[in-house]
């Protein structure tokens, strides 16, 4: 075990934990943002530099500060490490710079982008960025590439987090897309206009932090904050598919199906393309109840869910309710 101090809060974590995951065990507003790191994807992280933190003391043995800011998502903790995130002016300024860098070549077409409302870049820019731009040059754009009938690739919006590359590497037998080119001309693409055709290819939509990879069957149908997410499951024939999904309803219609994400937007259990693209009737699914949506998200504005209760502060709660709550604990308010 290693004891670290993160923004003045002490926490014990197992050896080898990254600084970011140590911060996540504390939770709340001190957790550094992450645009490219994705817990289930081995090898991800370190690229977007959104999670840079200052290490004020390297370890108990060697308490010197680290000379540069480090990417918290890939740097393991050391016993006695002191980390500054929101308490460091330098970190917050650098993060502003990172937002600026990510946005200079981004088309900022949120009004027509399907990802708007659940976009990591939107949230990141809103929380850490500035509202003006200093960029006067021409924005970089890309030719459109068709990667098949199910997934829409919109390369101009991409921030090159490599998540979809790792997903294809780790979920599918053969990866047919990857990063081509170099520098700011680097792009996600398939070699010689291949199509991505794999039973698990749809997961790249869920892992994409921006609107670069979107669901073609959901394209332009609805703004996400007008749809209602409902947890559901089915017995999927595919042994690698967990069958647990979120159905996004508009009225009686299931407009799209996604895998379930945790509070950091990460999918822990993958779903197959059959569940995602083909099962769009309520009768295909066993409904569980409304999915939890973080209150800070715009989607929650139009959303209902189980009441959030704190059993300890309500004195006369009937016993049946207490038992009920124990069995089905209410979800915590996010962050």
């Amino acid at each position, binding site marked *: 075990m290693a004891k670290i101090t993160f923004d003045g809060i002490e926490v014990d974590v197992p050896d080898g934990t990254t600084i970011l995951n140590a911060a996540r065990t504390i939770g709340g507003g001190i957790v550094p943002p992450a645009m490219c790191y994705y817990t289930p994807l081995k090898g991800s*992280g*370190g*690229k*977007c*530099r959104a999670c*840079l933190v200052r290490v004020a003391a390297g370890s108990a043995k060697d308490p010197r500060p680290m000379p*540069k*800011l480090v*990417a918290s998502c*890939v*740097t*393991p903790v050391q016993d006695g490490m002191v980390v500054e995130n929101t308490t460091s002016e330098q970190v917050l300024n*650098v993060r502003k*710079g*990172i937002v*600026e*860098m*990510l946005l*200079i*070549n981004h088309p900022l077409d949120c009004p027509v982008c399907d990802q708007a409302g659940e976009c990591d870049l939107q949230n990141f820019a809103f929380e850490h960025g500035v509202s003006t731009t*200093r*960029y006067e*040059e*021409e924005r*970089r754009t890309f030719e459109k590439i068709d990667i098949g009938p199910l997934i829409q690739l919109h390369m101009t919006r991409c*921030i*090159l987090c*490599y998540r979809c590359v790792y997903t294809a590497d780790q979920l599918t037998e053969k990866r047919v897309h*990857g*990063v081509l*080119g*170099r*520098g*700011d*001309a*680097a792009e996600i693409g398939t070699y010689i206009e291949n199509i991505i055709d794999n039973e698990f290819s749809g997961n790249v939509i869920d892992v994409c932090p921006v609107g670069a990879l979107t669901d073609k069957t959901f394209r332009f149908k609805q703004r996400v904050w007008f749809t209602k997410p409902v947890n559901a499951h089915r017995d999927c024939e595919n042994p690698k598919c967990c069958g647990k999904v979120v159905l996004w309803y508009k009225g009686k219609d299931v407009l799209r199906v996604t895998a379930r994400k945790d509070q950091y937007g990460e999918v822990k259990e993958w779903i197959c393309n059959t569940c995602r693209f083909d099962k769009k009737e309520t009768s295909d699914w066993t409904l569980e109840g409304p999915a939890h949506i973080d209150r800070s998200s715009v989607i929650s504005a139009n959303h209902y869910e189980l009441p959030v209760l704190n059993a300890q502060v309500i004195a006369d709660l009937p016993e049946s309710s207490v038992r009920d709550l124990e069995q089905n604990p209410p979800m915590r308010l996010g962050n």
Partner: protein
Amino acid sequence: MGRKLLTEHINVEGIDTFEVYRKHGGYRSVEKALKTMTPDEVVEEVKKSGLRGRGGAGFPTGLKWSFLAKPEGVPRYLVCNADESEPGTFKDRQLMSKLPHLLIEGMITSSYALGANTSYIYIRGELLYVLRILEKAIAEAYAAGFLGKNILGSGYDLDLYVHPGGGAYICGEETALLESLEGKRGNPRNKPPFPAVQGLYARPTVVNNVESIAAVPVIVNDGGDEYAKIGVGKSTGTKLISACGHLNKPGIYEIELGVPVEEFIYSDEYCGGIWKGRDLKAVVAGGSSVPILPKELILKTAAGENRLMTYESLSDGGFVTGTMLGSGGFIAMDETTCIVRNTWNFSRFYHHESCGQCSPCREGTGWLEKILHRLEHGHGNERDIDVLASVAKQIEGNTICPLGEAAAWPVSAAIRHFRDEFEWHIRHPQEATRPGAVYPGKAVLA
């Protein structure tokens, strides 16, 4: 005349063949190391020599070797970084094409010191003709029993391979080099883990520059203490400097570290002064990525002392009034040089060579280049200089690998010392973009 340790026999006819090289004392260090020394004794000699990495960072080679993890039953690797592609640096190419056996000898001795049984020379893709020279030399060394199984009957085995890269500057960064050597896209890795713990194929690996490895035979032959006598302070031994730009005699010079910069530029033994009788304006002392310095600061430090060709002296004053020895790519510019155009040219290179993995470098290098392009072509505005400085600062220190810094430093330094010239470009665009235009003012001294 300084001593020549590496290039003493460089002009001997046929020195690229095994026989001639051997006749001139070649492969003595292999015999000495394998027959009379333990690997740790070789490492100790290199430590004593004070040899510092010749690729640019100047990290002590012996210390780097002693960091190598040595778990039981796990192979270790030595990789020679021959991906020399920094603008202004061309010393390794010459060394390898003229003296291929010197590098091979160094590789054998160094591999023995590190306990590596397989070693690689990762060579830049554009240098295919050098690759052929090296492969021919390696075949000769195998035939003579200096490579392969049971070298010189010592029981030590070594296989040496040359691997060409695809011609990407980024693959000169050691972890990108390892990725490329593994057959992947040349993206730098996140550190830690460092290559000394998890390098090539996740095994402990040492990556050294060509010139560092070529210095090892000299150190083993003469002893580390003898080598350390050359030079000044912590800058020991000799260094190849590839001098280019507006000099009377550009070329590759082996200097004893500690030669004054003024002597290096003006003496007839070295560069012979600035061409066409012109005045010196600025110098980039260690390859395009190090900060540019105006004449006054490259010849004398801010404290008024003579600047010497050493790691310490050149970096005296930090980045405010100093620079770095870097890889030894010495670019001199005469008084007619346009600093804005030069900075744009450097920026264009880094924009082109950024791997695109991490966002500050991917987006920032492009941004820098686009602004500088505008400035140079007379479309600048008053805010541009501050934006340039600020973008450079946003890249610096926040990237995965040092390419970000390499892109940011020349821009920051050019603005620091030549801000007037940038402002002149903005205020007098027509005059500044006229062909052959020369800025009439003087450099700003920080």
